[in-house]
């Protein structure tokens, strides 16, 4: 499995890509594989401010359902509409398929997030 080093991770298997005051959030290769075929992403948090570690949505796979947790506090300003029609993109390309775009308050505290190396150790 593959964990790009330019991303940060959580113990709940989200990845975070920071871009100024914005963060793109998706789920890791490990997470998509554990879930199996993903068929629906339910993101009711669009346009709301969500606390760190709170649930921002749910991912439905054929056999299982799993909550998605905020890796950072912030406002969910966009949901990846490509995934509405093609949720399986998360399986095919987990790092190319961001799920939400979040506006965060600067400066961002990332001390609780994991590096690719730390995350790899967690899931191996």
């Amino acid at each position, binding site marked *: 499995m593959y964990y790009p080093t330019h991303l940060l991770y959580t113990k709940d298997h989200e990845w975070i890509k920071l871009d100024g005051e914005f963060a793109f959030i998706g789920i890791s290769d490990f997470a998509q594989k554990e879930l199996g*075929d993903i*068929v*629906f992403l339910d993101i009711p948090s669009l346009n709301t401010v969500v606390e760190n570690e709170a649930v921002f949505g749910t991912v*439905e796979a*054929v*056999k299982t*359902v799993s909550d998605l947790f905020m890796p950072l506090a912030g406002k969910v300003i966009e949901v990846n509409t490509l995934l509405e029609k093609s949720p399986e993109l998360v399986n095919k390309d987990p790092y190319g398929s961001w799920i939400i775009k979040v506006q965060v308050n600067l400066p961002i505290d990332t001390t609780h997030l994991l590096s690719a190396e730390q995350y790899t150790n967690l899931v191996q």
Partner: protein
Amino acid sequence: MKETALTRVHRELGAKMAEFAGCNMPIQYEGINAEHETVRRSVGVFDVSHMGEIIIKGPEALSLIQKITTNDAAKLTDGKVQYSCLTNDYGGIVDDLLVYRLDIDTYMLVVNASNIEKDFTWIKLKNTVNAEIENISDKISLLAVQGPMALATLQKLTKVNLLEIPYYNFQINTLAGISNVIISNTGYTGAGGFELYFSSVDAPVLWNHIFDAGKQFGIRPIGLGARDTLRLEMGYCLYGNDIDDTTSPLEAGLGWITKFDKEFTAHQILREQKSGGLSRRLVGFEMLDRSIPRHDYKIYSENGVHIGKVTSGTQSPTLKKAVGLGYIDSDFATENTTVFVSIRNKMCPARICRLPFIRTQIS
């Protein structure tokens, strides 16, 4: 944890393994949707050796089976199979099963893996007629070869003309050089195909022969995950989800295998249930939005009254829609009624629909 004779093969194939009914089983190989499609379009092989086989033998075998099962086993002749239920003293379902008539005095019951011990104990308890009862589950392997190319695959391996085995019939013959294989035109997918029962020592050899024979059709191994989505598209009940000790065969839509022209455990209770009308029924429904119903989610009427619960649910890989089974108040159990499934505190609309969810050559 128990293993089947093929557990090592599944691991080598990279299957995701998990415990099911005390047995280490393959849940998926390449992915549920891909495996599902393989079975609907071509041919796939399931190792379902965790299932149980119980032999009932002797001159009293039929009378015992008649007494404990809901269907009419007297209708069976040699080489025929019947779907049936074991009922408990209250009219609930101990298990659903297949009854094979091997000969006039010998029957094989094929039972759910999770119920082998329970069924065996129950049948012995009800055996006042002194039939011989033997649990041979540990010696028998079961492969389900399912899909439109299953027949062409297996035909290469046997002299038996498989076209001459009708649905719910079987023959015992040599297949892939292995003698005494029960070749049964049955399955749990609605995709057509055969189920093969044979001695577990032959399992790895037979597995390889089947995959060689099916290579030209793109044969693939299929896990229990796709087994569930395939059976759910057909509206087939899964014991422990849709039926159990507290649900009656009539409520579960299994009236067609509940025969009142004979006596069986709790037949009077069920007869009263039938004449008095059922208060709840197992129905199929499709979701009108994207959310997926799951076991135990609550079902509500349009007025917000709690009218039932979901027993099985999934995204149908064929229909690309979420579908489910559930028990609801009979008043709401008519086709096209709109009901609401509570999913993450949201009322998601669903439409009661006719089963099976999809049309296949079997239905």
